[in-house]
Protein backbone atom coordinates (compact mmCIF):
# COMPACT_ATOMS: atom_id res chain seq x y z
CA UNK A 1 0.00 0.00 0.00
CA UNK A 2 1.44 3.37 -1.00
CA UNK A 3 1.90 5.92 1.75
CA UNK A 4 3.27 9.40 2.05
CA UNK A 5 5.27 10.76 4.96
CA UNK A 6 4.93 14.45 5.82
CA UNK A 7 7.47 15.97 8.17
CA UNK A 8 6.42 18.68 10.60
CA UNK A 9 9.24 19.42 12.98
CA UNK A 10 11.50 17.10 14.93
CA UNK A 11 10.03 13.65 15.42
CA UNK A 12 10.39 11.80 18.71
CA UNK A 13 9.24 8.59 17.06
CA UNK A 14 11.61 8.78 14.09
CA UNK A 15 14.67 10.78 15.08
CA UNK A 16 16.78 8.84 12.56
CA UNK A 17 16.48 6.98 9.28
CA UNK A 18 13.98 4.16 9.34
CA UNK A 19 12.40 1.77 6.86
CA UNK A 20 9.10 3.63 7.30
CA UNK A 21 10.64 6.84 6.00
CA UNK A 22 12.62 5.11 3.27
CA UNK A 23 9.56 3.29 1.91
CA UNK A 24 7.37 6.39 1.50
CA UNK A 25 5.96 7.41 -1.91
CA UNK A 26 4.90 10.75 -3.36
CA UNK A 27 1.14 10.51 -3.25
CA UNK A 28 0.03 7.55 -1.18
CA UNK A 29 -3.43 6.52 -0.03
CA UNK A 30 -2.21 6.70 3.54
CA UNK A 31 -0.62 9.84 4.96
CA UNK A 32 1.75 9.61 7.92
CA UNK A 33 2.51 12.95 9.56
CA UNK A 34 5.55 12.90 11.82
CA UNK A 35 7.07 15.54 14.04
CA UNK A 36 6.23 17.71 16.98
CA UNK A 37 3.93 19.86 14.82
CA UNK A 38 2.07 16.96 13.24
CA UNK A 39 -1.27 18.24 14.54
CA UNK A 40 -0.84 21.64 12.89
CA UNK A 41 0.22 19.99 9.62
CA UNK A 42 -2.88 17.79 9.78
CA UNK A 43 -5.15 20.83 9.97
CA UNK A 44 -3.61 22.08 6.70
CA UNK A 45 -3.75 18.72 4.95
CA UNK A 46 -5.79 18.82 1.75
CA UNK A 47 -8.37 16.08 1.03
CA UNK A 48 -7.76 14.46 4.41
CA UNK A 49 -11.15 12.73 4.34
CA UNK A 50 -10.50 11.06 0.98
CA UNK A 51 -7.41 9.19 2.23
CA UNK A 52 -7.62 5.59 3.38
CA UNK A 53 -6.01 6.66 6.64
CA UNK A 54 -4.23 9.67 8.10
CA UNK A 55 -1.79 9.05 10.96
CA UNK A 56 -0.78 11.88 13.27
CA UNK A 57 2.26 11.49 15.51
CA UNK A 58 1.21 12.24 19.06
CA UNK A 59 3.20 13.55 21.98
CA UNK A 60 1.49 13.19 25.34
CA UNK A 61 -1.77 14.69 24.07
CA UNK A 62 -4.89 12.80 23.08
CA UNK A 63 -5.87 12.39 19.42
CA UNK A 64 -9.14 14.19 20.19
CA UNK A 65 -7.16 17.43 20.56
CA UNK A 66 -6.61 17.31 16.78
CA UNK A 67 -9.85 15.73 15.56
CA UNK A 68 -12.36 17.12 18.03
CA UNK A 69 -14.72 14.89 20.00
CA UNK A 70 -18.50 14.44 19.99
CA UNK A 71 -20.57 12.48 22.51
CA UNK A 72 -18.33 9.41 22.44
CA UNK A 73 -19.19 9.00 18.77
CA UNK A 74 -16.00 10.52 17.37
CA UNK A 75 -13.88 8.59 14.93
CA UNK A 76 -12.99 8.76 11.24
CA UNK A 77 -10.06 7.78 9.05
CA UNK A 78 -7.68 9.72 11.33
CA UNK A 79 -5.53 7.85 13.85
CA UNK A 80 -2.82 8.88 16.26
CA UNK A 81 0.42 7.06 16.86
CA UNK A 82 3.67 7.21 18.78
CA UNK A 83 6.63 4.91 18.86
CA UNK A 84 7.26 3.99 22.48
CA UNK A 85 10.44 5.49 23.83
CA UNK A 86 11.70 5.68 27.39
CA UNK A 87 13.17 9.10 28.04
CA UNK A 88 16.19 9.65 25.85
CA UNK A 89 16.74 5.98 25.05
CA UNK A 90 16.37 4.87 21.43
CA UNK A 91 12.77 4.37 20.29
CA UNK A 92 11.52 0.81 20.68
CA UNK A 93 10.04 -1.21 17.87
CA UNK A 94 6.56 -0.69 19.26
CA UNK A 95 4.01 1.72 17.88
CA UNK A 96 0.96 2.51 19.96
CA UNK A 97 -1.76 3.17 17.40
CA UNK A 98 -4.55 5.31 18.79
CA UNK A 99 -8.12 4.96 17.63
CA UNK A 100 -11.42 6.52 18.67
CA UNK A 101 -14.77 4.78 19.29
CA UNK A 102 -15.97 5.12 15.69
CA UNK A 103 -12.67 4.92 13.84
CA UNK A 104 -13.21 2.93 10.62
CA UNK A 105 -11.83 -0.60 10.64
CA UNK A 106 -10.42 -0.06 7.13
CA UNK A 107 -8.38 2.87 8.39
CA UNK A 108 -7.02 0.81 11.32
CA UNK A 109 -6.15 -2.07 8.99
CA UNK A 110 -4.41 0.24 6.50
CA UNK A 111 -2.41 1.96 9.24
CA UNK A 112 -1.37 -1.37 10.69
CA UNK A 113 -0.27 -2.61 7.29
CA UNK A 114 1.92 0.42 6.65
CA UNK A 115 3.57 0.25 10.08
CA UNK A 116 4.06 -3.51 10.12
CA UNK A 117 5.36 -3.32 6.56
CA UNK A 118 8.17 -1.15 7.93
CA UNK A 119 9.02 -3.81 10.53
CA UNK A 120 7.26 -2.18 13.48
CA UNK A 121 5.04 -3.92 16.02
CA UNK A 122 1.61 -2.38 16.47
CA UNK A 123 -0.57 -2.26 19.58
CA UNK A 124 -3.95 -0.63 19.06
CA UNK A 125 -5.35 1.38 21.97
CA UNK A 126 -8.03 3.87 22.85
CA UNK A 127 -7.44 7.60 23.09
CA UNK A 128 -6.32 7.86 26.72
CA UNK A 129 -3.46 9.77 28.30
CA UNK A 130 -0.45 7.49 28.70
CA UNK A 131 -1.87 5.01 26.19
CA UNK A 132 -0.78 1.49 27.22
CA UNK A 133 2.82 1.35 28.40
CA UNK A 134 3.19 4.59 30.30
CA UNK A 135 0.01 3.85 32.19
CA UNK A 136 1.41 0.51 33.26
CA UNK A 137 5.02 1.35 34.00
CA UNK A 138 4.86 4.76 35.66
CA UNK A 139 3.13 3.52 38.85
CA UNK A 140 5.58 0.61 38.92
CA UNK A 141 8.60 2.92 38.60
CA UNK A 142 7.23 5.25 41.29
CA UNK A 143 6.71 2.28 43.60
CA UNK A 144 10.24 1.02 42.97
CA UNK A 145 11.72 4.43 43.81
CA UNK A 146 9.56 4.73 46.92
CA UNK A 147 10.42 1.24 48.16
CA UNK A 148 14.11 1.94 47.57
CA UNK A 149 13.75 4.99 49.85
CA UNK A 150 11.98 2.84 52.44
CA UNK A 151 14.82 0.35 52.50
CA UNK A 152 12.94 -2.69 51.17
CA UNK A 153 16.20 -3.76 49.48
CA UNK A 154 19.25 -2.24 47.84
CA UNK A 155 18.95 -0.88 44.31
CA UNK A 156 21.02 -3.82 43.08
CA UNK A 157 18.84 -6.40 44.81
CA UNK A 158 15.63 -4.75 43.57
CA UNK A 159 16.93 -4.92 40.00
CA UNK A 160 18.28 -8.46 40.33
CA UNK A 161 14.96 -9.68 41.70
CA UNK A 162 12.93 -8.33 38.80
CA UNK A 163 15.42 -9.51 36.19
CA UNK A 164 15.86 -13.03 37.53
CA UNK A 165 12.35 -13.47 38.91
CA UNK A 166 10.41 -12.17 35.92
CA UNK A 167 12.92 -12.17 33.08
CA UNK A 168 12.77 -8.39 32.64
CA UNK A 169 15.78 -7.25 30.58
CA UNK A 170 16.57 -4.58 33.14
CA UNK A 171 15.51 -3.74 36.69
CA UNK A 172 13.57 -0.54 37.37
CA UNK A 173 16.35 1.40 39.07
CA UNK A 174 18.99 0.76 36.37
CA UNK A 175 16.38 1.49 33.72
CA UNK A 176 15.41 4.83 35.24
CA UNK A 177 19.06 5.79 35.58
CA UNK A 178 19.57 5.00 31.89
CA UNK A 179 16.41 6.65 30.59
CA UNK A 180 16.56 9.63 32.94
CA UNK A 181 14.84 10.13 36.29
CA UNK A 182 13.89 13.69 35.36
CA UNK A 183 12.18 12.43 32.21
CA UNK A 184 10.26 9.96 34.34
CA UNK A 185 9.18 12.87 36.53
CA UNK A 186 7.78 14.75 33.52
CA UNK A 187 5.81 11.81 32.17
CA UNK A 188 4.39 10.67 35.48
CA UNK A 189 3.56 14.23 36.59
CA UNK A 190 1.53 14.70 33.38
CA UNK A 191 -0.35 11.45 34.08
CA UNK A 192 -0.92 12.51 37.67
CA UNK A 193 -2.51 15.71 36.41
CA UNK A 194 -4.60 13.81 33.87
CA UNK A 195 -5.92 11.14 36.23
CA UNK A 196 -5.43 12.48 39.76
CA UNK A 197 -4.40 8.97 40.78
CA UNK A 198 -1.72 9.02 43.52
CA UNK A 199 -0.01 6.03 41.88
CA UNK A 200 1.22 8.48 39.23
CA UNK A 201 2.42 11.10 41.74
CA UNK A 202 6.15 11.42 41.09
CA UNK A 203 8.31 9.57 43.60
CA UNK A 204 10.66 11.65 45.72
CA UNK A 205 13.77 10.59 43.81
CA UNK A 206 12.22 11.62 40.49
CA UNK A 207 11.25 15.00 41.91
CA UNK A 208 14.75 15.54 43.28
CA UNK A 209 16.31 14.67 39.92
CA UNK A 210 14.00 17.14 38.19
CA UNK A 211 14.72 19.91 40.72
CA UNK A 212 18.44 19.34 40.41
CA UNK A 213 18.34 19.98 36.65
Amino acid sequence: MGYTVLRAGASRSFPQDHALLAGAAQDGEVVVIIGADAGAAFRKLARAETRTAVLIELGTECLGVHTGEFRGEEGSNVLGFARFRLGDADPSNLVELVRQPRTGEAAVAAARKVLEGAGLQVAVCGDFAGRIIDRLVRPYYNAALRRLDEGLATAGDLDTTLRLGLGYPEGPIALLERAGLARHFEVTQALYEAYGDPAYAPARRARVAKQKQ
Partner: protein
Amino acid sequence: MAAEIKTVGVAGVGTMGAGIAIVAARAGFRTVVYDTRQDALDRARRQTEGFLAKSVERKKLTQPQVDRILGDLSGTTRIGELAACDIVIEAVFEDLKVKHALLGELNRICPPHALFASNTSTLSITEIAAGSGRDERVVGMHFCLPAQLMKLVEMSPGIRTSEDAFRAAWEFCRALGQVPVRTQDSPGFILNYFLVPFNNDAIRLVEAGVAAPADIDRAVKSGLGYPMGPLELLDLVGLDTHLLVAEALYASTREPRAAVPALVRRMIAAGHLGRKTGRGFYSYQGSAMFGG
Protein backbone atom coordinates in the same frame (compact mmCIF):
# COMPACT_ATOMS: atom_id res chain seq x y z
CA MET B 1 28.99 -21.42 58.51
CA ALA B 2 27.57 -23.12 55.45
CA ALA B 3 30.05 -25.92 55.95
CA GLU B 4 28.03 -26.86 59.02
CA ILE B 5 25.03 -27.59 56.87
CA LYS B 6 25.19 -31.16 55.61
CA THR B 7 21.66 -32.42 55.85
CA VAL B 8 18.69 -30.51 54.50
CA GLY B 9 15.05 -31.13 55.33
CA VAL B 10 12.19 -30.08 53.07
CA ALA B 11 8.76 -30.11 54.68
CA GLY B 12 5.82 -30.25 52.28
CA VAL B 13 6.53 -31.69 48.88
CA GLY B 14 3.92 -30.06 46.68
CA THR B 15 4.60 -27.75 43.76
CA MET B 16 7.40 -25.86 45.51
CA GLY B 17 8.84 -28.40 47.92
CA ALA B 18 9.53 -30.93 45.18
CA GLY B 19 11.58 -28.36 43.25
CA ILE B 20 13.45 -27.15 46.32
CA ALA B 21 14.40 -30.72 47.20
CA ILE B 22 15.88 -31.19 43.72
CA VAL B 23 17.92 -28.01 44.16
CA ALA B 24 19.29 -29.19 47.51
CA ALA B 25 20.17 -32.73 46.42
CA ARG B 26 21.61 -31.54 43.12
CA ALA B 27 23.94 -29.21 45.05
CA GLY B 28 25.28 -32.20 46.98
CA PHE B 29 23.28 -32.06 50.22
CA ARG B 30 21.80 -35.11 51.80
CA THR B 31 18.11 -34.22 51.55
CA VAL B 32 15.19 -35.59 53.55
CA VAL B 33 11.75 -34.78 52.24
CA TYR B 34 8.81 -34.92 54.62
CA ASP B 35 5.11 -34.73 53.78
CA THR B 36 2.04 -35.90 55.66
CA ARG B 37 0.81 -37.58 52.49
CA GLN B 38 2.46 -40.62 50.95
CA ASP B 39 0.83 -39.87 47.58
CA ALA B 40 2.50 -36.44 47.55
CA LEU B 41 5.87 -38.11 48.21
CA ASP B 42 5.28 -40.67 45.46
CA ARG B 43 4.26 -38.03 42.95
CA ALA B 44 7.27 -35.88 43.81
CA ARG B 45 9.61 -38.85 43.39
CA ARG B 46 8.17 -39.60 39.94
CA GLN B 47 8.43 -35.95 38.89
CA THR B 48 11.97 -35.75 40.21
CA GLU B 49 13.06 -38.84 38.30
CA GLY B 50 11.44 -37.46 35.15
CA PHE B 51 13.08 -34.07 35.56
CA LEU B 52 16.53 -35.55 36.19
CA ALA B 53 16.19 -37.91 33.20
CA LYS B 54 15.51 -34.86 31.03
CA SER B 55 18.55 -33.13 32.52
CA VAL B 56 20.62 -36.09 31.30
CA GLU B 57 19.04 -35.91 27.83
CA ARG B 58 19.89 -32.21 27.70
CA LYS B 59 23.40 -32.98 28.86
CA LYS B 60 23.07 -30.83 31.96
CA LEU B 61 23.80 -33.83 34.19
CA THR B 62 25.41 -37.24 33.68
CA GLN B 63 23.74 -40.51 34.65
CA PRO B 64 26.21 -41.12 37.53
CA GLN B 65 25.38 -37.63 38.85
CA VAL B 66 21.68 -38.41 38.70
CA ASP B 67 22.24 -41.69 40.52
CA ARG B 68 24.12 -39.82 43.24
CA ILE B 69 21.35 -37.18 43.53
CA LEU B 70 18.59 -39.78 43.78
CA GLY B 71 20.64 -41.65 46.37
CA ASP B 72 20.89 -38.49 48.47
CA LEU B 73 17.14 -37.87 48.33
CA SER B 74 14.84 -39.75 50.68
CA GLY B 75 11.17 -39.27 51.44
CA THR B 76 9.21 -39.91 54.62
CA THR B 77 5.86 -39.35 56.28
CA ARG B 78 7.50 -39.48 59.72
CA ILE B 79 8.53 -36.07 60.94
CA GLY B 80 11.06 -37.66 63.32
CA GLU B 81 13.31 -38.37 60.34
CA LEU B 82 14.07 -34.66 60.11
CA ALA B 83 15.93 -34.92 63.43
CA ALA B 84 19.35 -34.94 61.78
CA CYS B 85 18.74 -31.82 59.67
CA ASP B 86 20.90 -28.71 59.91
CA ILE B 87 18.25 -26.70 58.09
CA VAL B 88 14.60 -27.40 57.32
CA ILE B 89 12.90 -25.49 54.51
CA GLU B 90 9.17 -25.53 54.91
CA ALA B 91 6.88 -25.39 51.87
CA VAL B 92 3.62 -26.59 53.44
CA PHE B 93 0.21 -24.96 52.94
CA GLU B 94 0.11 -21.17 53.08
CA ASP B 95 -1.60 -21.12 56.48
CA LEU B 96 -0.08 -19.57 59.59
CA LYS B 97 -1.58 -22.20 61.91
CA VAL B 98 -0.24 -25.08 59.83
CA LYS B 99 3.21 -23.51 59.70
CA HIS B 100 3.21 -22.80 63.46
CA ALA B 101 2.22 -26.39 64.28
CA LEU B 102 4.91 -27.77 61.98
CA LEU B 103 7.72 -25.52 63.24
CA GLY B 104 6.73 -26.05 66.86
CA GLU B 105 7.07 -29.79 66.39
CA LEU B 106 10.35 -29.43 64.47
CA ASN B 107 11.66 -27.28 67.30
CA ARG B 108 11.29 -30.26 69.63
CA ILE B 109 12.86 -32.69 67.18
CA CYS B 110 15.74 -30.81 65.54
CA PRO B 111 19.06 -29.92 67.17
CA PRO B 112 19.30 -26.38 68.61
CA HIS B 113 21.63 -25.16 65.84
CA ALA B 114 19.20 -26.11 63.06
CA LEU B 115 17.84 -23.27 60.95
CA PHE B 116 14.22 -23.09 59.85
CA ALA B 117 13.48 -21.45 56.51
CA SER B 118 10.03 -20.59 55.22
CA ASN B 119 9.09 -20.44 51.56
CA THR B 120 5.97 -18.38 52.30
CA SER B 121 4.81 -15.98 49.59
CA THR B 122 2.39 -13.85 51.56
CA LEU B 123 2.81 -14.43 55.30
CA SER B 124 5.19 -12.52 57.53
CA ILE B 125 8.44 -14.22 58.47
CA THR B 126 8.27 -12.58 61.90
CA GLU B 127 4.78 -13.98 62.50
CA ILE B 128 5.79 -17.44 61.32
CA ALA B 129 8.91 -17.31 63.49
CA ALA B 130 6.87 -16.26 66.52
CA GLY B 131 5.27 -19.70 66.66
CA SER B 132 8.47 -21.67 66.17
CA GLY B 133 10.03 -21.59 69.61
CA ARG B 134 13.32 -20.42 68.03
CA ASP B 135 12.49 -17.22 66.28
CA GLU B 136 16.11 -16.04 66.16
CA ARG B 137 16.89 -18.97 63.80
CA VAL B 138 14.01 -18.55 61.34
CA VAL B 139 14.57 -16.91 57.95
CA GLY B 140 12.48 -16.32 54.86
CA MET B 141 13.69 -18.15 51.75
CA HIS B 142 11.27 -17.45 48.96
CA PHE B 143 12.07 -19.58 45.91
CA CYS B 144 10.44 -18.95 42.53
CA LEU B 145 8.36 -21.42 40.58
CA PRO B 146 9.73 -23.73 39.17
CA ALA B 147 12.39 -23.83 41.89
CA GLN B 148 14.55 -26.41 40.10
CA LEU B 149 15.05 -23.94 37.21
CA MET B 150 14.79 -20.47 38.75
CA LYS B 151 17.90 -19.16 40.46
CA LEU B 152 16.39 -16.32 42.47
CA VAL B 153 15.71 -16.64 46.20
CA GLU B 154 14.34 -13.68 48.17
CA MET B 155 15.74 -13.91 51.68
CA SER B 156 14.33 -11.99 54.61
CA PRO B 157 15.13 -11.89 58.28
CA GLY B 158 12.25 -11.60 60.75
CA ILE B 159 12.43 -8.95 63.45
CA ARG B 160 14.07 -11.35 65.89
CA THR B 161 16.21 -13.32 63.42
CA SER B 162 19.88 -13.20 64.44
CA GLU B 163 22.35 -11.82 61.93
CA ASP B 164 24.35 -15.03 62.40
CA ALA B 165 21.43 -17.22 61.42
CA PHE B 166 20.64 -15.01 58.46
CA ARG B 167 24.24 -15.11 57.26
CA ALA B 168 24.38 -18.90 57.60
CA ALA B 169 21.19 -19.25 55.58
CA TRP B 170 22.57 -16.84 52.99
CA GLU B 171 25.77 -18.85 52.59
CA PHE B 172 23.71 -22.02 52.37
CA CYS B 173 21.62 -20.45 49.61
CA ARG B 174 24.77 -19.67 47.65
CA ALA B 175 26.04 -23.19 48.25
CA LEU B 176 22.80 -24.38 46.64
CA GLY B 177 23.90 -22.55 43.49
CA GLN B 178 21.05 -20.08 43.86
CA VAL B 179 21.16 -16.28 43.72
CA PRO B 180 19.96 -14.77 47.02
CA VAL B 181 18.70 -11.21 47.35
CA ARG B 182 18.06 -9.59 50.71
CA THR B 183 14.70 -8.01 51.37
CA GLN B 184 12.85 -6.75 54.41
CA ASP B 185 10.14 -8.96 55.90
CA SER B 186 7.48 -6.93 54.14
CA PRO B 187 4.28 -8.01 52.35
CA GLY B 188 5.02 -9.64 48.99
CA PHE B 189 8.78 -9.17 49.55
CA ILE B 190 10.04 -7.68 46.28
CA LEU B 191 8.66 -9.83 43.50
CA ASN B 192 5.01 -10.09 44.44
CA TYR B 193 4.96 -6.56 45.83
CA PHE B 194 5.71 -5.24 42.33
CA LEU B 195 4.18 -7.94 40.16
CA VAL B 196 0.69 -8.23 41.65
CA PRO B 197 -0.22 -4.51 41.34
CA PHE B 198 1.34 -4.38 37.85
CA ASN B 199 -0.88 -7.26 36.77
CA ASN B 200 -3.90 -5.64 38.41
CA ASP B 201 -3.17 -2.45 36.48
CA ALA B 202 -3.08 -4.44 33.22
CA ILE B 203 -6.46 -5.97 34.09
CA ARG B 204 -7.79 -2.47 34.78
CA LEU B 205 -6.75 -1.39 31.27
CA VAL B 206 -8.81 -4.27 29.86
CA GLU B 207 -11.72 -3.33 32.13
CA ALA B 208 -11.55 0.30 31.04
CA GLY B 209 -11.48 -0.64 27.37
CA VAL B 210 -8.10 0.98 26.80
CA ALA B 211 -6.88 -1.95 24.73
CA ALA B 212 -7.50 -5.65 24.09
CA PRO B 213 -5.39 -8.20 26.01
CA ALA B 214 -3.35 -9.10 22.93
CA ASP B 215 -2.50 -5.46 22.29
CA ILE B 216 -1.48 -4.87 25.90
CA ASP B 217 0.72 -7.96 25.90
CA ARG B 218 2.28 -7.07 22.56
CA ALA B 219 2.99 -3.53 23.79
CA VAL B 220 4.71 -4.76 26.95
CA LYS B 221 6.75 -7.40 25.14
CA SER B 222 7.96 -5.31 22.22
CA GLY B 223 8.08 -1.96 24.02
CA LEU B 224 9.79 -3.15 27.21
CA GLY B 225 11.31 -6.48 26.19
CA TYR B 226 9.45 -8.47 28.85
CA PRO B 227 9.38 -12.17 27.97
CA MET B 228 5.63 -12.43 28.60
CA GLY B 229 2.77 -9.98 28.64
CA PRO B 230 0.89 -9.51 31.94
CA LEU B 231 -2.34 -11.07 30.68
CA GLU B 232 -0.65 -14.13 29.21
CA LEU B 233 1.16 -14.50 32.51
CA LEU B 234 -2.10 -14.24 34.48
CA ASP B 235 -3.64 -16.94 32.29
CA LEU B 236 -0.65 -19.15 33.06
CA VAL B 237 -0.70 -18.50 36.82
CA GLY B 238 -4.49 -18.85 36.97
CA LEU B 239 -6.86 -16.10 38.01
CA ASP B 240 -7.87 -17.98 41.15
CA THR B 241 -4.25 -18.06 42.29
CA HIS B 242 -3.82 -14.40 41.39
CA LEU B 243 -6.89 -13.58 43.47
CA LEU B 244 -5.48 -15.36 46.55
CA VAL B 245 -2.10 -13.66 46.36
CA ALA B 246 -3.57 -10.23 45.58
CA GLU B 247 -6.08 -10.49 48.42
CA ALA B 248 -3.30 -11.36 50.84
CA LEU B 249 -1.20 -8.46 49.61
CA TYR B 250 -4.12 -6.04 49.78
CA ALA B 251 -5.11 -7.21 53.25
CA SER B 252 -1.64 -6.45 54.57
CA THR B 253 -0.86 -3.24 52.63
CA ARG B 254 -4.26 -1.66 51.85
CA GLU B 255 -2.63 -0.19 48.78
CA PRO B 256 -5.24 0.52 46.08
CA ARG B 257 -3.18 -1.01 43.27
CA ALA B 258 -3.09 -4.32 45.15
CA ALA B 259 -6.91 -4.47 45.24
CA VAL B 260 -8.25 -7.03 42.82
CA PRO B 261 -10.23 -5.52 39.92
CA ALA B 262 -13.87 -6.58 39.77
CA LEU B 263 -13.31 -8.26 36.41
CA VAL B 264 -11.24 -10.99 38.10
CA ARG B 265 -14.15 -12.22 40.23
CA ARG B 266 -16.48 -12.14 37.24
CA MET B 267 -14.04 -14.18 35.17
CA ILE B 268 -13.61 -16.69 37.99
CA ALA B 269 -17.40 -17.00 38.34
CA ALA B 270 -17.60 -17.66 34.60
CA GLY B 271 -14.96 -20.37 34.84
CA HIS B 272 -12.41 -18.33 32.90
CA LEU B 273 -9.45 -19.14 35.15
CA GLY B 274 -6.83 -19.18 32.41
CA ARG B 275 -5.00 -21.97 30.65
CA LYS B 276 -6.16 -24.63 33.06
CA THR B 277 -9.82 -24.16 32.09
CA GLY B 278 -9.07 -23.43 28.43
CA ARG B 279 -10.12 -19.82 28.73
CA GLY B 280 -8.97 -16.70 30.52
CA PHE B 281 -8.00 -13.48 28.83
CA TYR B 282 -7.32 -15.71 25.81
CA SER B 283 -8.92 -18.91 24.57
CA TYR B 284 -6.78 -22.01 24.34
CA GLN B 285 -7.17 -25.12 22.26
CA GLY B 286 -4.71 -27.78 23.33
CA SER B 287 -1.63 -25.77 24.04
CA ALA B 288 -2.16 -23.30 21.21
CA MET B 289 -3.55 -19.89 21.90
CA PHE B 290 -6.05 -18.22 19.65
CA GLY B 291 -8.13 -15.09 19.69
CA GLY B 292 -7.55 -12.28 22.11
